[in-house]
């Protein structure tokens, strides 16, 4: 989904802004500070934001209303949503009495998306600067949503707007599961990549030092509020949207296991440790590192550890794990999940 807050978009936008400037022939109101005046773009805006995709949900009613008899059963209301790069969603929902604009955590956003799935969900790109007009009057949900999208339309009903948008080439129907997979994948991948990255200056470190740094990064990433919210949502929605749950597992824990497995293999090759099943050891290390945090995160209880507590946890886990791996034990475990260690000197 194209949003201006993604890294690549940000970069492009930055350079475009430097190259651009005020459109010729614009008349600036007297008293506007020169630096602001210089920022005004060709649409009269202080910032130039590229067009974003909106998720437009045409939905049946939740509570009975007298006017429901006049509109199609599945399209009695319409609202707009947009995922952010942190896992939350922007919601713009016209009420009778106000326009609700808020940011929803993923679990709450899923409730709105499920409501959307009771009707139809469309992905529509907004028009910038748009062709809508404030002179429409009677700003009901359909009119306000068309206004958000910058569409010039005379329809007064959600169903009318639905048919109008469906005729456009760029409009796409969406499924909730696909939207969650897309968002979970992007956000979790981003966190995993930064947590599991090994810098050029770290390659000369000892295995134990490197493992401690990775362990600390993993704890920090796992306790990022946006990631905790996505984890909770992935578990909560496992029955309804299993693909979203699996993508969380693949981009989160499984990537961590893969990186740890590679580290352990290298350490074994270098003679730092002796391991027969590096993948099983990676599972065990990660589980020790997380301790109670995963369960507490799911149940939304407990306190976030301070940075020094995270550091202590990482060091203690690395110490216990490496002591255990290096201890004199006879390998006796058969199955795939097992961790085997050899007697020192054998």
């Amino acid at each position: 989904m194209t949003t201006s807050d993604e890294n690549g978009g940000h970069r492009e936008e930055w350079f475009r802004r430097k190259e651009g400037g005020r459109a010729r022939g614009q008349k600036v109101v007297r008293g506007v500070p020169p630096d602001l005046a210089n920022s005004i773009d060709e649409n009269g805006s202080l910032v130039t934001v590229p067009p974003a995709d909106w998720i437009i949900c045409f939905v049946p009613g939740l509570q009975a209303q007298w006017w429901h008899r006049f509109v199609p059963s599945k399209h009695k209301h319409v609202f707009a949503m947009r995922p952010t790069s942190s896992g939350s969603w922007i919601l713009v929902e016209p009420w009778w009495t106000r326009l609700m604009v808020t940011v929803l955590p993923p679990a709450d956003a899923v409730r709105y998306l499920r409501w959307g799935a009771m009707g139809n969900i469309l992905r529509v790109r907004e028009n910038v600067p748009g062709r809508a007009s404030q002179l429409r009057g009677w700003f009901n949900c359909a009119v306000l949503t068309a206004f958000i999208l910058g569409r010039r339309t005379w329809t007064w009903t959600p169903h009318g707007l639905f048919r109008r948008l469906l005729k456009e080439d760029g409009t796409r129907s969406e499924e909730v599961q696909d939207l969650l997979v897309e968002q979970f994948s992007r956000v979790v991948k981003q966190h995993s990549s930064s947590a599991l990255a090994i810098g050029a200056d770290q390659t000369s470190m000892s295995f134990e030092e490197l493992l401690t740094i990775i362990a600390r990064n993993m704890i920090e990433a796992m306790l990022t509020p946006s990631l905790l919210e996505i984890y909770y949502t992935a578990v909560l929605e496992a029955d309804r949207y299993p693909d979203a749950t699996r993508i969380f597992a693949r981009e989160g824990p499984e990537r961590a296991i893969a990186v740890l497995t590679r580290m352990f293999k290298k350490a074994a090759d270098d003679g730092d440790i002796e391991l027969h099943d590096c993948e099983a050891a990676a599972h065990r290390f990660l589980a020790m590192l997380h301790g109670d945090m995963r369960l507490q995160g799911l149940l939304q209880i407990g306190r976030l550890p301070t940075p020094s507590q995270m550091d202590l946890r990482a060091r203690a886990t690395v110490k216990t794990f490496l002591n255990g791996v290096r201890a004199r034990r006879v390998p006796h475990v058969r199955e795939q999940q097992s961790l085997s260690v050899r007697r020192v000197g054998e």
Partner: protein
Amino acid sequence: MTESFGRARHSGQPDKGAVLDAVSVHLDRDERLLSGIDPLLERCGCTKRDILTTFGSVDDFLVALAGRYADQLTDLLRPGDIRALDVARDVLKQFGLAAWKNYTTTLVGLVRLIIAEGARSQNLRDRVYEAGPTRVSKALCEFLAHARDSGVLDIADPSLATEQLMGVLREPLYQALLLHPMAEAAAERTDIVAAAIDLFLDGCAGRRS
């Protein structure tokens, strides 16, 4: 209606133990439990009214259920005198095996249930966590502290060590919650738990040397 639950209902006196027994039989890692308690009650053949009559509230019922599993595990951590590392090893392997079995099956369902029902009440989540995981962790922490005081283990921070071990034993729970359930074969389970306990104990004992 299940037989044991039928007895519990018709005996005149609410029998909490019999109800918990009946429910435990049907508690597995079914993803439908994420929608709340109704699918479980349906399978047990009982109604919310039965639960209210016996426990007073759905929340009290869930807390009792969590407490029941905690009892099963904490009972295994009363070893008496811990004289040697092998004694601690045997106790922890029995404990680990029971925990692993629960975290592979029934507790997956219970956690799903708590996530679903807990969405309406922070207090419920707190109470369940206190009655279940906290009690188990406390018992394990006391066990490890006792082993340290007896000179068997060299643990600087028993509560952190408890978290490490519980983290490993809860691995099947987390895998199941993310739809990658682990194998349940008894032989495999024994080996996996034995390896985990060995790694942990060797990790702790190793510091002293």
